[in-house]
């Protein structure tokens, strides 16, 4: 059914709402990539079977929905029940019968499936009372988890395309631009360029043909917010893009998605087909006279293709390499025509901004960073997952209230934000309110919103080496400072973690870093030294220990670290013996265990499994000293 007018859209919307509300009981099974990996598909199928089997439930209107990512990936598969608002975590297919029988039909709660607050051990019944969700404010992710991403009517019932209808029928393109300007929204891809300013620049560029693009090439280690939005609510992205196209006067667009996100590609494809079918995309959208259509382009998995000019070259069918942007892509972008490129999360917020008003968006956040921001919270934190918060939320709230603190309550050391272009923020800055400026001041950046929590068992030299290795692999090699500089920087780090570091290495690193920052062609190379410089700034003594004492204070770098068992703490459980991959541990159950240093490869497997923390690390050099004595 094609929508031919605003009235028809309103009618469709109330019809969809009615249909959604007619069904009182809903079982929402999270089918994001995280929960799918923990077996959510089987759970959803089991629910469908169970519901089909019980004819009695049909009369109360029971609907099983596979939704996008609820965010709380750590506890998946997640099942939310409506209208009660109960959230069950780590649900297995075998428990489905019980859930339907006891909770859905009987109204009785199954305590063992509820979320247990690690702080006080209490079970929490309701979705919104769980600390992980309590602090969140969702704009870009407003519908994720509530809707079935493959069902356009479900999205429309929740408000999708309402912003588009308002823009097309009640606002001129300039008024749309003005509303976005009032919102103060800045690019969510990392650089934080003002959205409205970008659009205006494109709109004012000469020429009739122009493009709007969506950057879904999220490739930072530890970041997955764009993926979850594309998977969980593709309509919010399409709506934003059409509104943007209307504002700048574009009729063609592309969504560039990395091919490693298969579910995102599938759900976006379905969404585009459905939107076309309903006349929300294509010619004469909603009968407004505005034409716009969009295609999906799948990226080949090069990190550098997330860079705007490389992305456009890749879309053109050329090698995805960046080029100088002295002439902005808003004037000369894809096929040398005016182009607006925004990130997935940026587009996803636009519909809400138009629908609820720029002022509403601007009422959240800080002075220069308005609205909310999505983050992927990962690493050594209890509640890993996807969150969205008002800008300016302190790191401490994110990591300790929402994240639940570090795994095993080990001492917190740092949080890495912004991916390979970002940096490590140390404990003393935990009260830092998170916005674009504050993170940059701290030597890190917003980036794509990845947050990797690190505890005391993290070596900052090793972490920097990890990011360097990632970038060295991903550098396109076009410009000298990035191609050669990353290789040489990595060589220095390989020496540092292996105990071959020498005096003067830190100065060499700093000199090279400055050359790369000033000399590199694109942001990949320019920002590549950030992890290095931020760890040097906050953890210099750790570097010095690697060079001077040939020791890794965190006990991570293998070449520098030895392990031993503290006999008084060991209860002879034999777990380390079983975990050791090279049979370097001897001992029998309930008796003394010993690590043999000549055979030990310092992998740390014993350390990780020891239930009584009876294994300690110490610098390998001490072994050599002992031998000499």
């Amino acid at each position: 059914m094609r929508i031919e007018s605003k009235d028809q859209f309103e009618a469709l919307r109330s019809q969809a709402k009615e249909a959604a509300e007619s069904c009182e009981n809903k079982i929402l099974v999270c089918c994001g990539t995280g929960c799918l990996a923990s077996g959510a598909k089987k759970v959803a199928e089991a629910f469908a079977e169970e519901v089909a089997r019980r004819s009695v439930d049909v009369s109360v209107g029971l609907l099983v929905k596979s939704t996008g990512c609820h965010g709380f990936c750590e506890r998946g598969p997640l099942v939310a029940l409506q209208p009660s608002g109960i959230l069950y975590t780590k649900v297995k297919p075998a428990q489905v019968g019980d859930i339907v029988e006891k909770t859905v039909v009987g109204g009785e709660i199954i305590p063992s499936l509820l979320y247990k607050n690690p702080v006080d051990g209490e079970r929490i019944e309701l979705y919104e009372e769980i600390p992980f969700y309590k602090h969140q404010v969702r704009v870009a992710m407003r519908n994720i988890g509530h809707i079935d991403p493959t069902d356009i009517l479900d999205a429309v019932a929740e408000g999708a395309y309402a912003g588009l209808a308002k823009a097309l029928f009640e606002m001129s393109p300039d008024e749309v631009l003005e509303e976005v300007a009032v919102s103060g929204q800045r690019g969510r891809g990392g650089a934080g360029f003002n959205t409205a300013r970008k659009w205006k620049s494109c709109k004012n560029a000469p020429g009739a043909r122009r493009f709007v693009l969506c950057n879904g090439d999220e490739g930072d280690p530890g970041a997955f917010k764009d993926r979850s939005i594309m998977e969980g609510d593709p309509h919010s992205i399409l709506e934003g893009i059409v509104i943007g196209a209307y504002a700048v006067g574009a009729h063609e667009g592309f969504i560039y998605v990395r091919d490693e996100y298969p579910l995102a590609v599938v759900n976006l494809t379905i969404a585009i087909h459905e939107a076309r079918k309903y006349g929300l995309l294509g010619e004469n959208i909603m009968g407004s006279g505005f034409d716009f259509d969009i295609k999906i382009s799948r990226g080949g998995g090069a990190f550098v293709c997330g860079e705007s000019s490389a992305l456009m070259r890749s879309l053109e069918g050329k090698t995805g390499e960046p080029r100088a942007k002295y002439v902005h892509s808003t004037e000369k972008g894809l096929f040398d025509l005016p182009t607006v490129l925004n990130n997935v999360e940026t587009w996803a917020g636009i519909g809400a901004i138009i629908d609820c008003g720029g002022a509403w968006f601007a009422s959240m956040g800080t002075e220069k960073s308005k609205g909310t921001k999505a983050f992927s919270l990962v690493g050594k934190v209890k509640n890993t997952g996807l969150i969205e918060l008002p800008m300016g939320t302190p790191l401490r709230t994110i990591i300790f209230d929402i994240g639940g603190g570090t795994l095993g309550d080990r001492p917190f050391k740092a949080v890495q934000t912004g991916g390979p272009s970002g940096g490590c923020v140390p404990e003393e800055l935990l009260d830092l309110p998170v916005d674009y400026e504050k993170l940059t001041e701290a030597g890190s950046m917003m980036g794509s919103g990845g947050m990797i929590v690190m505890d005391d068992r993290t070596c900052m030299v090793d972490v920097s080496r990890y990011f360097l290795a990632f970038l060295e692999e991903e550098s396109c090699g076009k410009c000298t400072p990035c191609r050669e500089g990353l290789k040489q920087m990595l060589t220095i780090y390989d020496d540092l973690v292996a105990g071959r570091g020498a005096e003067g290495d830190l100065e060499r690193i700093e000199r090279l870093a400055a050359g790369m920052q000033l000399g590199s062609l694109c942001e990949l190379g320019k920002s590549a030294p950030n992890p290095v410089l931020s760890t040097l700034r906050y953890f210099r003594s750790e570097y010095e220990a690697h060079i001077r004492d040939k020791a890794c204070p965190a006990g991570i770098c293998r070449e520098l670290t030895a392990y031993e068992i503290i006999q008084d703490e060991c209860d002879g459980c034999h777990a380390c013996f079983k975990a050791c991959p090279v049979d370097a541990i001897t001992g029998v159950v309930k008796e003394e265990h010993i690590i043999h240093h000549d055979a030990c490869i310092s992998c740390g497997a014993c350390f990780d499994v020891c239930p009584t923390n009876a294994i300690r690390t110490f610098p390998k050099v001490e072994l050599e000293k002992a031998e000499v004595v």
Partner: protein
Amino acid sequence: MPTLQINGRRVTVAEDATILDAARKAGVEIPTLCQFDGLEPWGGCRLCVVDMSLASWDDDWFKVVTSCNHPVEEGMTVLTNTERIIETRRVVLDLLLARCPETPLIQGLAREHGIDQTSYAPNPEPDDCILCGLCTRVCDHIGVSAISSVNRGWGREIAPPFHKAPPDCIGCLACAEVCPTDCIPYSTSNTRREIWGKEFEMLRDPKTGEAVITKAQAQHFAERSGVPTTYFETSDASKRRQMAKTFERLGQLK
């Protein structure tokens, strides 16, 4: 026509000029490795970086840009020898010297910038390729695209497809000609030519017998220009001789 200042010298250049064009006109030398007149600027070697400030910016605000591809603007100020520019160039040359420790061009440029030996780990298997991309760009420009860069990052190299004799190569030698370090080997004689592992038959002047261009090159040019292949088999010397004879005849006709 915009006027700008480079190291204090005023220079007026064409609207579409780059900073590098302007610097050359002003007699200010800027080192480059990947720039070649007639090819679109690429901005890959990063040697031509300069400090630049636009008239509309605060006086002390300068930005580091590559001069080869940055357009000029009225009132622009350019400095080619600030401390950070010299240092950035040094880092670039130091890195290139690590990749190509035995390449005379790089050794010379590095020495000019005060570097006798690289401060980084020298390439254990050095060759002379500095990855300036001139060969592949000229090949694209001619409309052949027989070679390209393959792999990425440090492993990037210039190669024909699958490292086999490139089917599209016309043996024109433009790649070898533009290579600043002469690292593309080829052999050519009166009868045959070889480059990138592919052999070519030479077109020879019917009168003098001297080799002019490869048959494949003549065909490529003929297809693109509509001129018959035979036009290309005449050597320049033969063409001049022909011309002289024509003028001689014209003179006699008078």
